[in-house]
C-alpha cells in the first residue's frame, strides 16, 4: 500500500481566507458567528449564522466560468487555487497529469430556488439563464473545478451530509494507497444562504441564543441548545509519498487512517455504537497506539444528543487517557459539507503551530463531557498526531487520523 501525504491546503472560512488568517483566528479564539436580521424577517426560528461573503472572482475567472458557479463553487475555487499554490503545483503540471478531484458537497439550494422562482413567474424556462442547471446540481463544485483547473483524473462529489468533507479525504487516500491516483484534490464546500438551511432551521436544530451570537455555539457545554450553521470551502492536496518526494513537494503530514461506519439507526439522532466503530476502525486501520494521538478534533456541533453520544464514543475508545478534545465548531459554527475537510485544516494548523485552540464557551461540562479533557482556554502544546471526526445525518460516520511530518 502506498503512503498518502498532504502537500497543500487552502481555505475560505468565516475565520479567514488564508491559512495565516485562519491560524491566527484559531489561536486567538475568534468567533465567526453573527445574527442575520434577514433570516428573522424570513421567519427563521434562529437567525444565527457564520459570517461569510462571496468572493468577487471577476478578473480571475471569465464571465462564462463564473456563470456556472454557485457560491460554494466560488469558495471551493478560492480554497483549491490556494492549496495548489501551497503545494507548488502549476497549471502546466495539471495539464500534463491526471490529477483527481473528490470534493464534498451535499446541496445547492439557492440556484434551484432562484431558477424555480423564475420559471413560476415568467412561465418560461429559458429565462433562468444558462448557468442555472450547472449551479443547481450537487456535483456543481467538482464540475466547475474540473473544468477550471483542467483536472483529468477521477472527478466526483461526495454527498454524505456533514461527513462529506471527511469521506472525500478518506476516499482520495484510498485511491492513492491503491496506486490508482498519484494526486487527488480533496475537500468540502458549503453554501451559506437562508434557502439552503431554512428547512433545517424548521426542525429546531439551531441555537436560539440570538442575544449573544458568539456564545451560541458551545460544543460539550451543559447549556448548549443547538448548532449554528456556517460554511465556505476547504481543500487539501493528497499525494502519493514517493511522488511528492520526487516532485520536491512540501510534505506536511501523512493520512494514516480512515475509519468509517454507518449507524443504521435514526435519520437525525446519532447513536454511540456507530461513531465508536468509526473511531475504532480508524485506529485499527492506522495501526497506531492511541497514546500517540495528541489531539482529538471532535465533530460535536453543540446539539444535546450529538455531543453527548460523541463524548461517550470518544470515552469508549480513549478511556481515561487525557487527550485534549475540542470542537472547532465553537468558533466556526457547523460548516456541514465543508466541515470534515476544514477541520483537518484547522487541526493541521494547530499541529504545525504547537497549540490546541480553545473550545469556546465550554463553561460547564455535562455528565459525559466531564469525562473528557476539553480545554476552555487555548493550550500551548506540541503534538504529532490528531484524530478528526465527522458524523452526518443518516448516521454516516468518518474518522481520519493524520500524522505530522516535519
Amino acid at each position, binding site marked *: 500500500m502506498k503512503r498518502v501525504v498532504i502537500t497543500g491546503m487552502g481555505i475560505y472560512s468565516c475565520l479567514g481566507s488564508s491559512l495565516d488568517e485562519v491560524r491566527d483566528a484559531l489561536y486567538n479564539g475568534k468567533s465567526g458567528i453573527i445574527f442575520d436580521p434577514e433570516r428573522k424577517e424570513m421567519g427563521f426560528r434562529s437567525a444565527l449564522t457564520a459570517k461569510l461573503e462571496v468572493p468577487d472572482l*471577476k478578473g480571475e475567472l*471569465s464571465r462564462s466560468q463564473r456563470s456556472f458557479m454557485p457560491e460554494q463553487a466560488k469558495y471551493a475555487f478560492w480554497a483549491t487555487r490556494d492549496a495548489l499554490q501551497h503545494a507548488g503545483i502549476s497549471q502546466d503540471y495539471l495539464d500534463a497529469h491526471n490529477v483527481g478531484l473528490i470534493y464534498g458537497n451535499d446541496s445547492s439550494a439557492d440556484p434551484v430556488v432562484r431558477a424555480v422562482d423564475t420559471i413560476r413567474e415568467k412561465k*418560461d424556462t*429559458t*429565462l*433562468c439563464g*444558462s*448557468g442555472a442547471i450547472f449551479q443547481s446540481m450537487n456535483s456543481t463544485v467538482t464540475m466547475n473545478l474540473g473544468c477550471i483547473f483542467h483536472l483529468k483524473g477521477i472527478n466526483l462529489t461526495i454527498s454524505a451530509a456533514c461527513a462529506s468533507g471527511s469521506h472525500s479525504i478518506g476516499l482520495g487516500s484510498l485511491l492513492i494507497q491503491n496506486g490508482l491516483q498519484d494526486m487527488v484534490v480533496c475537500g468540502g464546500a458549503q453554501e451559506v444562504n437562508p434557502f439552503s438551511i431554512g428547512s433545517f432551521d424548521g426542525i429546531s436544530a439551531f441555537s436560539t441564543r440570538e442575544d449573544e451570537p458568539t456564545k451560541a455555539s458551545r460544543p460539550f457545554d451543559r447549556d448548549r441548545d443547538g448548532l449554528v450553521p456556517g460554511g465556505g470551502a476547504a481543500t487539501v492536496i493528497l499525494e502519493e509519498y514517493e511522488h511528492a518526494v520526487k516532485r520536491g513537494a512540501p510534505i506536511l503530514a501523512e493520512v494514516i487512517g480512515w475509519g468509517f461506519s454507518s449507524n443504521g439507526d435514526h435519520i437525525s439522532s446519532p447513536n454511540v455504537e456507530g461513531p465508536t466503530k468509526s473511531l475504532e476502525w480508524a485506529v485499527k486501520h492506522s495501526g497506531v497506539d492511541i497514546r500517540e494521538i495528541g489531539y482529538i478534533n471532535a465533530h460535536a456541533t453543540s446539539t444535546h444528543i450529538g455531543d453527548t453520544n460523541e463524548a461517550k464514543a470518544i470515552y469508549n475508545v480513549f478511556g481515561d487517557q487525557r487527550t485534549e478534545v475540542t470542537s472547532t465548531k465553537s468558533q466556526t459554527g457547523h460548516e456541514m459539507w465543508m466541515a470534515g475537510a476544514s477541520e483537518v485544516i484547522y487541526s493541521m494548523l494547530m499541529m504545525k503551530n504547537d497549540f490546541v485552540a480553545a473550545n469556546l464557551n465550554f463553561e460547564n461540562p455535562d455528565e459525559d463531557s466531564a469525562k473528557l479533557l476539553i480545554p476552555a482556554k487555548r493550550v500551548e502544546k506540541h503534538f504529532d498526531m490528531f484524530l478528526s471526526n465527522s458524523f452526518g445525518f443518516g448516521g454516516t460516520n468518518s474518522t481520519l487520523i493524520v500524522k505530522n511530518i516535519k
Partner: protein
Amino acid sequence: MKRDELIQKVNEILAEEFETDIAKLTPDANIKKTLELDSLSLVDMIALIDNEFGVKIANSELPQIQTFQALYDYLEANMK
C-alpha cells in the same frame, strides 16, 4: 423610450454583462462575435434582455437578429 436612449441602455447592459468594451458595440457589428457568445451565453443574453426590457426573443426570431442594429429594431418594435 426614445431610440437613442434605447441604444445607450442596450449597449451599456450588454457591455457590462458580457465584459466587452462598449466601443465595440457598433450598429453593424455581429452580436455573437462582438460579445463572444456561445450557445450557452446566448441564452443568457435572451434572459437579460427580457429582464431589462420585458421582451423575450423567441428562438425562431433569433436568426434575424445578427447585428446590434437588428436588435435595436426588434426591441423598438416589441417593447410596450
